[in-house]
């Protein structure tokens, strides 16, 4: 179902991931979060931005345990835990945060 | 009758280039594209085959396919000309027909 951000329509796939990663604007994350009844904080944005950088460098949306490991390395050990990440993104840190970040569905998430 | 031959298979996997060079007439043009561009690399086991071919035909290689695979012109066998897509079109137009070696 396409989503509308500031009057502009964005195509998504059947699971709600943005059809074209290059279309992404920060407002996309806001609208998606609102649909999930989630208020985005700086901590959420740290992960969303981290995922966009990760994709830019490796051309892949990481699986959740890869994300956890990479976040721990980049943003500090206290943040590289399932507990912390699930606290932020209850629907699955990688799946949900990748969707907000405009990335495809993570590779290796089962 | 001039012919542009295209080869899009790796010389290490198939004999497309070998057959092309065997049957192409003197002075024909051969364009290496897609996985066929690997034949243009200097220092490989296909080098002597290609060098022998240079004495018989003009050999071209598609630049975007070389770049996509991580190589630059400095890795190519001397005497091979690099063309872009516009150059490919020119070659097709300048010859009477195009023959593909798949």
């Amino acid at each position, binding site marked *: 179902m396409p989503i509308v951000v500031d009057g502009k329509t964005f195509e998504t796939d059947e699971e709600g991931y943005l059809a074209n990663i290059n279309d992404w604007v920060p407002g996309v994350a806001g609208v998606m979060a609102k649909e999930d009844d989630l208020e985005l904080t700086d901590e959420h944005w740290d992960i969303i931005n981290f995922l966009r950088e990760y994709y830019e460098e490796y051309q892949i949306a990481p699986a959740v345990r890869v994300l956890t490991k*990479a976040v721990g390395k980049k943003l500090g050990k206290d943040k590289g835990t399932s507990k912390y990440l699930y606290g932020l993104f209850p629907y699955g840190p990688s799946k949900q945060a990748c969707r907000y970040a405009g990335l495809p569905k993570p590779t290796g998430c*089962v | 009758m001039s012919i542009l031959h295209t080869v899009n298979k790796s010389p290490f996997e198939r004999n497309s280039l070998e057959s092309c060079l065997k049957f192409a007439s003197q002075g024909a043009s051969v364009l290496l594209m*897609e996985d066929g561009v690997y034949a243009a*690399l200097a220092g490989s*086991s296909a080098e002597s085959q290609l060098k022998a071919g240079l004495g018989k035909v003009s050999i071209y290689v598609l630049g975007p396919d070389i770049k996509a695979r991580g190589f630059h012109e400095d*890795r190519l066998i001397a005497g091979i000309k690099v063309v872009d897509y516009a150059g490919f079109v020119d070659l097709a137009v300048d010859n009477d027909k195009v023959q593909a070696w798949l």
Partner: protein
Amino acid sequence: MSEVVKKFMYLNRRAPYGTIYAWESLEVVLIGAAFDQEVNLMFVDDGVFQLVKGQDTAGIGMKNFSPTYRTLGDYEVKNIFVDADSLAARGLTQDDLVAIAYEDMDTEEEIENIVEVVDAARVTELMDESDVVFSF
């Protein structure tokens, strides 16, 4: 986890972009990495071209998936082998290939490059030791 750990080998013999095999293999490896098996990646014949660094596909309108090989360490794939003869036959050396890093999160030991160039006898040995070989 009480499952028996099997040794899987992914045997890569095709160049990237000309056919879909290289990308399919990489996807299967990344998805399969979730299952905690012992994985060996083997690159022989034209498969060695998959690891050539500096790939730039902007001109051919295809996705450049070569940067993704560098995440294999993050996916806990830590055994990556390249057949020396295949490299030499293509005029390549290890300097032409990407480096893939691996960090053990428990010991914090970091290996700068887990890509290992091996001789034919070692390739044979690794194949013999595998429980399953997936060919691409």
